[in-house]
């Protein structure tokens, strides 16, 4: 998906800043444009400002500075109930004193909709999440997954153009979470709504999103589609936050056309792609995904550098092998290899040579 320009965007954060105490900024100069129908995830560790951004969009917090526009209309002064934004909360926030049907009917009632229209809409929304049979239950009589579906149906029942989700799957077990991820994704696709989703679970972010905004320290560190985020992280925070990652410290020996040669602190030379480092002699952190490391020399591209490694530990994980190596003096270099036919199991103590294609190793800022 291409980046959205602020002219055709549905939601725009324009130089938004937020401070709670007047002495420090929780959100520092946020600029973000979200396209119509997009599924955008705000991903980041706790305290990174992602939830604050969502709350500002929903209207529960006001921006200290800057402007948020929704469908071309500035909404800083619009109270939450006039924004028409659906929201799914982490603890579902289903009203415990109302039945499922009453919960769904509530947003329609406050909009003054007639009884027959309400019933039709509630039925449609419940059918959408296959929960119509539960219309007369109380939320406390439902399981976590069922409550989640009802919360989803309630956020959608009044046909909002924008739906916000604040870690909606956080309380579910792993299997149900994965199932719900697909369900939410399919709902998004079939309804054509815009979704802003907040999570700290990178797997969730990568699975569901069109684009992911990685937050840290009140700033967006990278805004990119999931594959870019994983394979081409812009900086060492994103590289470290998304997925498993091997890090090697060194200095830039040579840079030409993005291709870089890095001399490790222990003296070895490795190949990498220069991302946000450019000058010779600059210190750098090279990030390599464990599954992109190769230890069979015949599979490496011609002229690739290799370095020595010693097998410390070999873990059989079923579909994968996970091998911990000592590389360049560090004990936590991990490689992953698929359990394909004829794949060799490495033995601890074995000496091997490893290498990688230059585009898979990214020379980043040393942080």
């Amino acid at each position, binding site marked *: 998906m291409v980046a959205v320009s602020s002219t055709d965007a549905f939601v725009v954060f324009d130089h938004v800043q937020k401070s709670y105490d007047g002495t420090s900024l929780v959100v520092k100069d946020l600029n973000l444009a979200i396209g119509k129908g997009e599924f955008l995830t705000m991903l980041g560790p706790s305290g990174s400002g992602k939830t604050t951004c969502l709350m500002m969009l*929903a*209207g*529960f917090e006001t921006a200290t500075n800057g402007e948020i526009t929704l469908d071309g209309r500035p909404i800083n002064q619009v*109270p*939450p*109930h*006039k*924004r*028409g*934004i*659906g*929201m799914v*909360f*982490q*603890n579902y*926030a*289903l*009203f*415990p*004193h109302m039945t499922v049907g009453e919960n769904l009917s*509530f*947003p329609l009632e*406050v*909009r003054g909709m007639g009884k027959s229209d309400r019933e039709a809409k509630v039925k449609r929304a419940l059918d959408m999440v296959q929960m119509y049979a539960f219309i007369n239950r109380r939320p406390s009589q439902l399981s976590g997954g069922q409550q989640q579906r009802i919360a989803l149906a*309630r*956020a959608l029942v*009044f046909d909002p153009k924008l739906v*916000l989700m604040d870690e909606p799957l956080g309380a579910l077990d792993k299997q149900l979470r994965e199932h719900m991820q697909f369900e939410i994704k399919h709902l998004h696709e079939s309804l054509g709504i815009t979704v802003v989703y907040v999570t700290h679970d990178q797997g969730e972010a990568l699975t569901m999103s069109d684009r992911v905004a990685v937050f840290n320290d009140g700033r967006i560190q990278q805004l990119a589609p999931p594959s870019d985020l994983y394979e081409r992280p812009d900086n060492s925070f994103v590289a470290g936050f998304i997925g498993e990652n091997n890090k090697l410290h060194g200095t830039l020996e040579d840079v030409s056309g993005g291709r870089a040669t890095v001399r490790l602190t222990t003296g070895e030379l490795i190949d990498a792609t220069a991302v946000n480092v450019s000058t010779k002699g600059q210190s750098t952190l090279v990030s390599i995904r464990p599954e992109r490391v190769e230890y069979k020399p015949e599979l490496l591209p011609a002229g690739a550098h290799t370095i020595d490694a010693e097998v410390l530990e070999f873990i059989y994980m079923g579909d994968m092998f996970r091998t911990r190596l000592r590389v360049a003096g560090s004990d936590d270099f991990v490689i992953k290899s698929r359990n394909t036919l004829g794949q060799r199991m490495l033995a601890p103590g074995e000496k091997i040579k490893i290498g990688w294609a230059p585009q898979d190793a990214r020379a980043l800022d040393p942080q």
Partner: protein
Amino acid sequence: MSQITTNGDLTTSDGRPLKAALAAAQFRAKRRAFFLVAPLLLFIIVSFILPIGQMLHRSVFHDGFAANAPDVKAWFAVNPDGTAPDEAAYAALAQDFKAMKADKTAGIAGTRVNYTLPETRSLITATARVADDLAPPYKDAFLALNPKWGDAAVWQAMRSASSAYTADFYLISTDRERAADGTIQKVPENTRIYIYLFVKTFLLSAVITVICFFLAFPVAHLLATLPTARANLMMILVLLPFWTSLLVRTTSWIVLLQGQGVVNDVLIALGIVGDDGRLKMMYNQAGTIIVMTHVLLPFMILPLYSVMKTIPPSYARAARSLGATSWTTFRRIYLPQTLPGIGAGALLVFILAVGYYITPALVGGADGQLISNFIDFHMDKSNWSLAAALSAMLLGGVLVLYWLYDRLVGIDNLKLG
């Protein structure tokens, strides 16, 4: 391994019935639990259940006359209600009076009859004093002594008092009496006090409960939503009254509200009222309401607070995001969820107010007195049975309210903290 015996009960692998095995296995734990609660159980029995049982017993039992007038009691037993007293009745009475004089029990017997029919105590004690002079024919002797002895109402009162167990005290508590022919009727209008007092007590308590609710709700909400440090400080302020003597608090209200008190002085200084128009806020119902509201306020705040504390802000946010105005959110989402706290607080304040004694006694004046002040009055007068009957009716009223609450709201919803 468990087996099923022929009659379908489960047994353990060695053939014992499963239920017996379970009971044996849990016996030690149950015994230990029992010993842990035993001191409290004993304390409650001695200090709570026994006295209340005693009180309820006293409200229907008084043998002051029954124990000391056995002969006339026997006459009442064989002659049905409404029989005019004959010579045998007067003879029996004379016999009892002689015994009373000898045992010096005329006073207590007279007191008992006096409860049922006022102004009969002196009749009985005076007669007992001269009992030895009584001679046949007894009827004439009695009537010569005092014509009241021919009054059917006196005989009706003695008949009633001749049974140790009696509902008379409950009749008095509901402003009723026995007519000369034994039927129950209301007492004359100008002596009816208890029904009015009960109604006033319950009404004043309801007013106090409602005022407490309106004052406590915002405070409890603030307490539940403030950051912890400031909420704690506020909680101390809420609890502060508990650390001062009730007497001191009540007296300070007197200082504030009395005719020459601080509030009136300030109003006069501001020119709002003239010196001859000082507000009467003390020694009347207004005084009782103001001071009791203040004293009972924490009992409303605390249950409300404990319920509000458990309502996550996300409910209100969800309602707002679904399009509800802040008023609709409060009315449809927040208020219904605080119901258990409202119920608990209201029940607590109401029950405490209904039985409140010291505050109305100090600041109530004449028309701010509640039923408990009259219970105390009768205890001072040693009419324990009437005090007990009034208390039992109060207890009954509270239990009825409790039952109503259970039917309407559900006692499971009660949350006291």
